[in-house]
């Protein structure tokens, strides 16, 4: 008996969990590295592209990890990203009265402060809709799936409304638009090593991991997901914690929105980020979180986001038609969860 339980302890250790996912990541990477022609897959430019693309998913997935650990779900993340993108572009297009009474773009007068204002507004709007999601879930006692299915539409509509259903082109390139510009393949910027947006992600990974592991809020998130009744019994403010979790998702979606804004070339596209919720949820699930709550880790989620991106981009480069790509990604999601279930059954 003791041997068995040591084994089970080993199997349930977080290091084995994340380690197994790193292994999966390496296998997926090796596959494309071997089969994409002429070693194009592991060129510096391509690796950088993978990191840039996965950053958008990964940043949004940070918030989703919190949500899924509480046994919730947020389908509105793609829409919130679009909202942030549109709010940024809209702010960059604000016109003010110039010195001679004529209208000038604010961004021309304050080339640094205007993008900052854009960020503040986008973060404010995104966090607010996230908090509203949470408040509806908690106060009206509606399941998260339904609330966020509804708000997915509402927020997408809001983004389209702000932009009058057109792409918004800012009058000037700004530092937000340059957040995700390539660095390694650009001599002038190579001192940064990674694009600034990716550095933001790295910073957020550290913060989010810290919050989950070392704060009271983080322990409450796990407790609610593992057993909400127990959490309530132990005096955990269940409602408040859940609302904050959805607000946090909104916040991270705003950051993902900045990256997306830059990645698509500094345009305020209200139709961007469609279907991203699925990639983001898939990243979290592949990363080892369980829909029934109580499990999940930030590091796992990041690995999950990388796996999804590599499958997506590798599939394109290997020359698979779109339909094969979609089937492969779908299959991998089911496979990942099935393996997890099997492992759990063995543990029990």
């Amino acid at each position, binding site marked *: 008996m003791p041997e068995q339980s040591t084994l089970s302890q080993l199997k349930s250790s977080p290091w084995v969990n994340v380690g197994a996912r790193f292994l999966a990541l390496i296998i997926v990477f090796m596959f494309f590295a071997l089969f994409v022609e002429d070693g194009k897959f592991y060129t510096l430019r391509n690796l950088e592209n993978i990191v840039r693309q996965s950053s958008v998913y990964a940043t949004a997935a940070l918030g989703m990890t919190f949500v899924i650990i509480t046994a919730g779900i947020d389908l509105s993340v793609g829409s919130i990203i679009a909202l942030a993108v549109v709010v940024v572009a809209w702010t960059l297009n604000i016109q003010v009265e110039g010195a001679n009474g004529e209208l000038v773009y604010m961004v021309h007068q304050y080339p640094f402060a205007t993008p900052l204002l854009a960020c503040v507004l986008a973060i404010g709007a995104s966090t607010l809709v996230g908090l509203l999601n949470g408040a509806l879930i908690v106060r009206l006692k509606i399941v998260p799936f339904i609330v966020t299915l509804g708000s997915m539409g509402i927020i997408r509509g809001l983004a389209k409304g702000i932009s009058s259903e057109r792409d918004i082109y800012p009058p000037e390139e700004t530092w937000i638009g340059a957040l995700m510009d390539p660095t390694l393949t650009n001599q002038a910027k190579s001192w940064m090593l990674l694009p600034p947006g990716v550095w933001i992600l790295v910073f957020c990974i550290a913060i989010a991991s810290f919050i989950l592991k*070392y704060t009271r*809020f983080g322990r409450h998130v796990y*407790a609610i997901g593992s*057993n909400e009744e*127990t959490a309530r*019994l*132990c005096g955990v403010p269940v409602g408040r914690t859940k609302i904050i979790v959805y607000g946090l998702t909104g916040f991270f979606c705003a950051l993902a929105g900045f990256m997306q804004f830059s990645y698509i070339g500094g345009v305020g596209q209200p139709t961007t980020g469609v279907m991203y919720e699925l990639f983001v949820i898939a990243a979290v699930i592949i990363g080892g979180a369980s829909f029934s709550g*109580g*499990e999940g880790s930030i590091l796992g989620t990041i690995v999950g986001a990388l796996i999804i991106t590599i499958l997506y981009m590798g599939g394109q480069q290997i020359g698979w038609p779109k339909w094969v790509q979609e089937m492969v990604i779908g299959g991998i999601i089911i496979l990942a969860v099935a393996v997890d279930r099997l492992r759990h059954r063995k543990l029990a």
Partner: protein
Amino acid sequence: MSGISKRFGATQALKRVDLSIFPGEILALLGENGAGKSTLMKIISGAHTPDEGTLRLDGEPYEPTNPMHARESGIAMIYQELSLAPHLSVMENILLGIEPSRRGLVSWKAMRSRAQEAMQAVGLEAIDRGTPVLKLSIAQQQLVEIARAVALECRVLVLDEPTSSLAKKDIETLFELVNALSSRGISIIYISHFLEEVKTLSDRYTVLRDGERVGSGVTEESTEFEIIAKMVGRDMSDLYPRSEHAPSDIVLEATRVSGIRKPLNASFQLRKGEVFGIAGLAGAGRTELIEALFGLEPIASGEVRLEAYSGTATPKLRWEQGMGLVSEDRKTQGLALGLSIADNITLPKLDDMGAGRLVFPKRQESASESWIEQIPIKCQSARQPVSALSGGNQQKVAIARLLHAGVDILLLDEPTRGIDVASKAQVYSLIDSLARGDAENQVEPKAILLISSYLPELLGTCDRIAVMSRGRLSEARPVAEWDEHSLMEVAIGQETENA
């Protein structure tokens, strides 16, 4: 049935039990909670397979492999928790799974006539058969379940505590129906705690205790006293350590507390340094009472006073006021099974685990380790998930949580349910030492409210005991004035009629 045995892991749930029933007979199956009644019924209905022994139905060997098989053989079960599809109509519920059909198409005409027939048999003809079941009262829903059994043309009908949620008038209707069904030749196994019901209804009775058949007889020839004696008759062992407790100030006072349905006007006082027991049967309202005290259930009327405070309560506030609860069901309520021991122990009080709102797992672990040693909890490390522990050790984690939070009032709801004897003994001595306190090390005595269905446990550990029966709490009396017979008498409602 003869010589039926069943083990679950280390627990012997049934030991060579014999049971027989004749056509058209009403057999009462009696026993305390955990005596093995449910296990026995699950074997009859095919949900469990016995380890040894045989079942015969009309002389033929009967080996049900699953509940569907049992139904097809003519054995219908009606559980305490009704199993109806609330959104479907009365008719669809009655014929669920046995819809008359031709080549896969449901024959609505046949359905209507068969449903109507069954509804008439149980006295439901006044209700429209198209009504969704959720619009019916509990009593009517139960009749729908019985109608389902009738439509199945069952020969044996098992009723598990059918009156626990019924009003007096509905109970009478049910009794008439049960008698009518038995006169149609249906054999009825009637499981109940309530002796008066058994006396009025049954032809014969069988008593189970600790998984063994300890008695049976013809109901008319036995007195209630005899039956009670068979249900409880155990010796008290020296499982229960008892030292001098010195009850002092009142720390918790409930005055005429009523919940939504239960409890009804419950009043009691709990003193520092005493173990106060609440006896009663499952479903009597004991759990509802302490959940109301703890702020988990609303209080409809009455007052709960904790020292100077008497306002509304939430669990968070109660923890801060020094009250903690170990809930009855550790799996669904009490513990976050997937999380570590350290997480579970420290959850209500994460204050000292780091500066400000920070929580350091290392500190959670070291804080938990001291409890793991003191209680003691058998585990490999504080990082182990609670799901890996035995039931007894899980329960000790739930109690350690209260000690970690430093509460003065412990509400314990069935703290020894489903755990092994060694762990039970540890829990009892823990309860005793908490109530005693430790003057040398300046550990204040604590106040303990203990709910239990296991009478020897209450008599062995408590200083005072009150009994709850159908939502009403009796007067508390010192333990010396109670014995198992008197507790059982009050619990099954012998005295409440006059009180």
